């Protein structure tokens, strides 16, 4: 599919080299992987570099509010059945980070790229992807993110002129709205537990009717498209009606959903669902998420939940009571500084679990849990929370920077 004959221009090569040098300096200075600074330097020298790097690859983009890093990993694993893959597996998902990742994969055939929601339309224009996988859209980072429906609208406008095959979750009305202006869409019934950002018709504003798994607008007729792929329990049903078993090390319904979309996307590149799904089993932890670590002679499972939809999915995968649960919430820049979203999370689902509360905003959580009528203990930090927790593997659920703090503390 991709033409590999055309070499990079001298300018592009220089940009790649300079970017790698900047990344190496950044790493040596102890400032992380250096992928973002490297990408920024390279893009400064050659603004078209991302497009040039992508020209040599069969590119698939992955975007969503939740699950994009995991899906990128699952899909990369599946596509390796067809050839070498380059991917921004560490979640650096804006143009600089993407450029840096692609620059490191000169021998690759496939590029599997996670893209931040706000950059999707631009990156799709730059890299001319063969496919784009769209999982879900919901409220996130309320103080600065674009309104959720506006984001869907921007995707719709941006994707209307893109030739890629769109693999889209038909169970999310906002994703359906974003994808349905595209010429080629593969609809996947991938499910969506969180429904509270799509009670209004994205097209006309009417109230959506949602009987069972279906949804439609009675006013304008906008409705759930007929899917050709479906997640059905522990299986992915392909367009021929064949049900393929999903075996993942990753827990939870949301990851089965990610696997179903990944299988449909891999099929667009000629990878058999059976092969794709078998390969996905290899994916264990994704950037620390779902990792089980030992800390103070206790087992902790690290779970990331950044927004109400993410918390909802996370509650459905944790071990039942009396498994102890540690909750940690921050409200720093990367988290969004508005903690109102805590009140959209149904914490009564944690009834029966011993609950320990930590993080910068533990008092917001304490009031939230008090009003939910739950018993909980507010602790100074992870160490105290782990000492306080009754026996058993501890489920630790944290939002974005709180999760990074946890990983640092446990040495993950």
């Amino acid at each position, binding site marked *: 599919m991709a033409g590999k004959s055309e070499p990079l221009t001298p300018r592009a090569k220089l940009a790649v080299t300079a970017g790698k040098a900047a990344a190496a300096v950044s790493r040596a200075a102890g400032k992380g992987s250096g992928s973002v600074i490297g990408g920024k330097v390279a893009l400064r020298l050659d603004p078209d570099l991302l497009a040039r790097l992508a020209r040599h690859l069969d590119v698939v983009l992955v975007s969503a509010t939740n699950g994009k890093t995991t899906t990128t990993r699952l899909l990369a694993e599946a596509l390796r059945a067809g050839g070498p893959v380059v991917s921004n597996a560490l979640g650096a998902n804006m143009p600089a980070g993407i450029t840096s990742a692609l620059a490191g994969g000169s021998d690759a055939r496939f590029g599997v790229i996670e893209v931040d929601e706000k950059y999707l339309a631009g990156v799709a224009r730059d890299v001319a992807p063969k496919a784009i996988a769209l999982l879900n859209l919901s*409220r996130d980072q*309320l*103080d*600065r993110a674009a*309104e*959720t*429906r*506006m984001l869907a609208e921007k995707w719709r406008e941006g994707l209307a002129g893109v030739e890629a095959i769109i693999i889209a979750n038909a169970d999310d009305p906002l994703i359906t709205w974003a994808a349905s202006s595209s010429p080629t869409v593969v609809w996947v019934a991938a499910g969506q537990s969180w429904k*509270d950002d799509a*009670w*209004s018709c994205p097209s006309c*504003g009417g*109230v959506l009717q949602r009987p069972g798994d279906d949804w439609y607008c009675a006013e304008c007729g906008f409705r759930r498209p007929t899917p050709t792929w479906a997640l059905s329990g522990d299986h992915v049903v392909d367009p021929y009606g064949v049900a393929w078993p999903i075996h993942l090390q990753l827990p939870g319904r949301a990851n089965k959903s990610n696997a179903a979309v990944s299988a449909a996307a891999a099929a667009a590149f000629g990878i058999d669902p059976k092969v794709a799904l078998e390969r996905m089993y290899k994916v264990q932890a994704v950037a620390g998420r779902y990792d089980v670590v030992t800390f103070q002679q206790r087992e902790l499972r690290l779970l990331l939940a950044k927004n109400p939809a993410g918390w909802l999915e996370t509650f459905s995968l944790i071990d039942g009571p009396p498994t102890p649960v540690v909750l940690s919430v921050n409200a720093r820049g990367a988290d969004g*500084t*508005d*903690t*109102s*979203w*805590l*009140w*959209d999370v149904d914490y009564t689902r944690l009834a029966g679990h011993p609950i320990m509360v930590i993080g910068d905003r533990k*008092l*917001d959580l*304490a*009031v*939230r849990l*008090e*009003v*939910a*009528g739950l018993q909980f203990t*507010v602790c100074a930090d992870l160490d105290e929370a782990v000492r306080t927790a009754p026996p058993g593997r501890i489920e630790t659920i944290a939002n974005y920077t709180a999760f990074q703090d946890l990983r640092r503390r446990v040495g993950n």
Partner: protein
Amino acid sequence: MSESSLRLVWVYPDLLSTYGDQGNALVVERRALQRRVPVTRVDVRSDQPVPTSGDIYLIGGGEDRPQRLAAERLRRDGGLNRAVANGAIVFSVCAGYQILGHEFVNDLGRPEPGLGLLDVVSTRGEGARCVGDVLADIDPQLGLPPLTGFENHQGITHLGRTARPFARLRIGRGNGTGDGTEGAFNDTVFGTYMHGPVMARNPHIADMLIKLALDVNALPPTDDRWYDALRAERIAAATQPA
């Protein structure tokens, strides 16, 4: 006011519930139940009629288009206006606050009629959104401790003669008019820009609404240590320079 239970109506969660607005309903419900006052909570979707027999109505914040849709449907329905005419209490936040006024600027940039339940008119501010912790002193007539909240809006709300400022700002932008006011109220209708949600940060407001609805002067005490701790932390955060 019914003798048997407190009827709490949450207006249009399908449109106006973007900023954890359910929290206000949960706090009012919880604090009433802690006083052994039974609560009947009704969540009214925007394709359903607004019941006129409620005691307390809560209406929350939302994005620009849902705000216009909510105003259209509430005007057409008329239930909320009839409830207020019957003496019902309304507490509104942000987009909901603007809807209760005479007029606001909708997502199409045009003036949109509100419900006229509060003597206020809202426009949209130029420049950056107001985002951050707020500290203000609530109108002394209401006898409440300082208001702490989180604002996240671009609105400017001008108060008319029959609306009193809900609070005087110490820190924050509030109504955005530069006159140091935040929110508005009259006899039974209240509006604020404060999220947080506001009742979680100011449980005394929930108690005030319950007292108004029950027509009592006092409620049995509750264990408010976590609310108090959160209030102290957020007031300190608002007063410390970032």
